[in-house]
């Protein structure tokens, strides 16, 4: 049955029409956009002047299934995603077992379809078992449903392996996404190496551990004339390197997380394990550089790096706690609160960084815009509504958010995936 969304303030990456529009949806697609469309046979949904974004897309999510279903499952992760306004997510392969062959990809895709709340695209491992040695069977992974490869959680340490993997991945038509961290330089660090780590007596993970891999990867990509996507850029120097690479026409894209554009390593002074992330929270200079990178497009998109963990896993002391924070449900509100409200991004730019750009990077042709002929993946947002982040309020299994206790602006009211309502705020 057709659906007619009435009185929408449509926000696309390239423009925002100040006039209210109606959106007619049929068979999962947007068939017409315009003012005062006739109801016809359609079921009417009046959004009363609220903002309607193209469904948000997150290139970096950990769903933990298979293996750590106590932290998150495809089902709970899906609920968290649609609550956060996402209609497409790319899930990372560092599950147990690792997503490094077609059987596991198929199992993930099957479960994702059973849940059916949104589009879940598995990223396959670049190397078997993410051990950095043998390449995965990339054509098989692609056939099974992968659009990207990554050894996320670690870099491909050996430069020759990376060179060959990038070369092969290009042939297979798969995007490679790199976690930039030289493990010999990060050397077991648990937070950013800085005056704060000196004060806290914690082992530091220096900025240079990230930037040497950023620089290396840019050079390899330049040499091969291929492309790469750099995950969770956290440092001012990384932003500079990516900016330079783009100025040279090197095909590099990059993402940043809400926690890296919001928090500094001062947050670690609380000793709270929810401030332990990889890459680590950096300094105020880095946060500002990441924001500016998002503003000028050096950093193409926002990705949550949603990394759910149980309370038990986290509360073992800072050094032993696993890295990562839950992020799907706060990403958009942090974008609005920290970037749009502060004048870093316009609302259109935010939609670009959270929908249009990631769609382009991962190669989704009918997503990332509210436009006739596009998939009817839509996020209805009240951009002014304030809400308190509470541990009890998460749809995710995990509550490991460093933002608990904060009041954020911008709330997802309704999420539609393929024209169906998959989330409704009560």
């Amino acid at each position, binding site marked *: 049955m057709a659906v007619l969304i009435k009185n929408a303030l449509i926000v696309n990456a390239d423009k925002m029409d100040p006039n209210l529009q109606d959106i007619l949806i049929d068979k999962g697609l947007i068939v017409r956009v315009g003012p005062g469309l006739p109801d016809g046979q359609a079921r009417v949904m009046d959004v009363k002047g609220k903002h309607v974004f193209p469904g948000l897309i997150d290139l970096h999510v950990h769903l933990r299934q298979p293996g750590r279903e106590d932290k998150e499952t495809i089902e709970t992760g899906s609920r968290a995603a649609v609550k956060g306004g996402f209609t497409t997510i790319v899930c990372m392969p560092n599950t147990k077992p690792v997503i490094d062959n077609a059987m596991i990809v198929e199992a993930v895709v099957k479960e994702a379809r059973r849940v059916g709340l949104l589009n879940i695209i598995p990223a396959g491992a670049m190397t078997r078992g993410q051990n950095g040695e043998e390449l995965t069977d990339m054509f098989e992974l692609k056939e099974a449903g992968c659009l990207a490869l990554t050894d996320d959680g670690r870099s491909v340490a050996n430069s020759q392996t990376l060179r060959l993997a990038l070369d092969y991945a290009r042939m297979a038509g798969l995007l490679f996404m790199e976690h930039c961290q030289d493990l010999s330089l990060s050397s077991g660090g648990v937070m950013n190496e*800085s*005056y704060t*780590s000196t004060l806290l*007596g914690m082992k530091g993970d220096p900025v240079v551990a990230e930037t040497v891999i950023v620089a290396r990867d840019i050079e390899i990509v330049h040499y091969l004339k291929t492309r790469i996507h750099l995950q969770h850029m956290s440092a001012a120097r990384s932003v500079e390197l990516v900016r330079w690479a783009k100025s040279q026409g090197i095909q590099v894209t990059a993402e940043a997380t809400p926690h890296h554009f919001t928090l500094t390593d001062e947050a670690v002074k609380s000793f709270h394990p929810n401030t332990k992330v990889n890459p680590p929270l950096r300094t105020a200079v880095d946060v500002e550089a990441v924001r500016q990178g998002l503003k000028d497009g050096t950093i193409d998109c926002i990705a949550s790096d949603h990394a759910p963990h149980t309370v038990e896993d986290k509360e*073992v*002391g800072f*050094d*032993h706690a696993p890295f990562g924070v839950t992020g799907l449900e706060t990403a958009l509100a942090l974008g609005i609160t920290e970037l749009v409200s502060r004048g870093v991004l316009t609302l259109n730019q935010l939609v670009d960084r959270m929908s249009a750009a990631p769609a382009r990077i991962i190669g989704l042709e009918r997503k990332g815009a509210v436009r006739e002929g596009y998939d009817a993946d839509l996020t209805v947002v009240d951009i002014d509504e304030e809400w308190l982040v509470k541990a009890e309020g998460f749809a995710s299994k995990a509550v490991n958010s460093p933002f608990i206790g904060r009041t954020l602006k911008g709330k997802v009211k309704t999420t539609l995936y393929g024209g169906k309502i998959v989330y409704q705020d009560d």
Partner: protein
Amino acid sequence: MTEWTRHHLYDLEDLSKEEIELILETARSFKEVSTRDVKKVPALRGKTVVMLFFEPSTRTRTSFELAAKRLSADTINFSSSGSALSKGESILDTARNIEAMNVDMIIVRHQSAGVPYILGAGVQASIINAGDGCHAHPTQALLDIFTMKERKGRVQGLKVAIIGDILHSRVARSNIWGLTKLGADVTLCGPTTLIPVGIRNLGVKVTHDLNDVLGTSDVLMLLRLQKERQQDKFLPSIREYARVFGINKEKLKKAKKDVLIMHPGPTNRGVELTADVADGEYSVILEQVTNGVAVRMAVMYLMSGKKTAE
């Protein structure tokens, strides 16, 4: 007179100059107790003190235990180093278990920075940090400062050199907080690879040349060098460290006539200092150990709700 109002002792970073002085003053009166024939006062009678040690320690644990016993407290040891408990144990679970035993004070040591703070937020009992990772070791710094003050009559204006592996030293960090608050002039001396970034922001000087501090310091505080620093490539060899940063009789000739040689123990003889220096006329290393008991008695006494020096 300053009143003691704190329920926990995490680090000297949190304390005012007056609070540190109150502890030192209180310790002075407790030092005498340990010289009596009957080395016991009833100050903590009926109180229960738990030594919660997730990391091996003989000296600090013994010192705390003796201090508690001399205050007439009941003491329990809860060590879990080396076992499955030391890693990956839920800190709050442990805290809740201890809480259930109705204890009054928890002396905690853990290899991870910040654990005492997490415990403190979860229990009613008083927490005393007996060393958390490379972060803080407040009672060690207090006993060091107590020893300096007793020997030199003041801390203000004293030239103190802290020599060795600053990067991995909780003793150095707590001493820097305490000494700078009391107006000492602190210089750190160690290899470039073992001086943490930005440490000058704490109001200390940094040098990599022992000669810069040898002739001018009132106190030379030597830090224990862990042997694994060589494998971790922080140093070419222990031998070279001893040659460049170790203190021997010959080098000491340049030092002030009334210099104090201090070390938190246990010493690596032949590395940080030679045996003749450790046992020599300038060394106050054993006095530090004696003073440790008095300082820990003072801390526990104040934390038990007693407000001022006796």
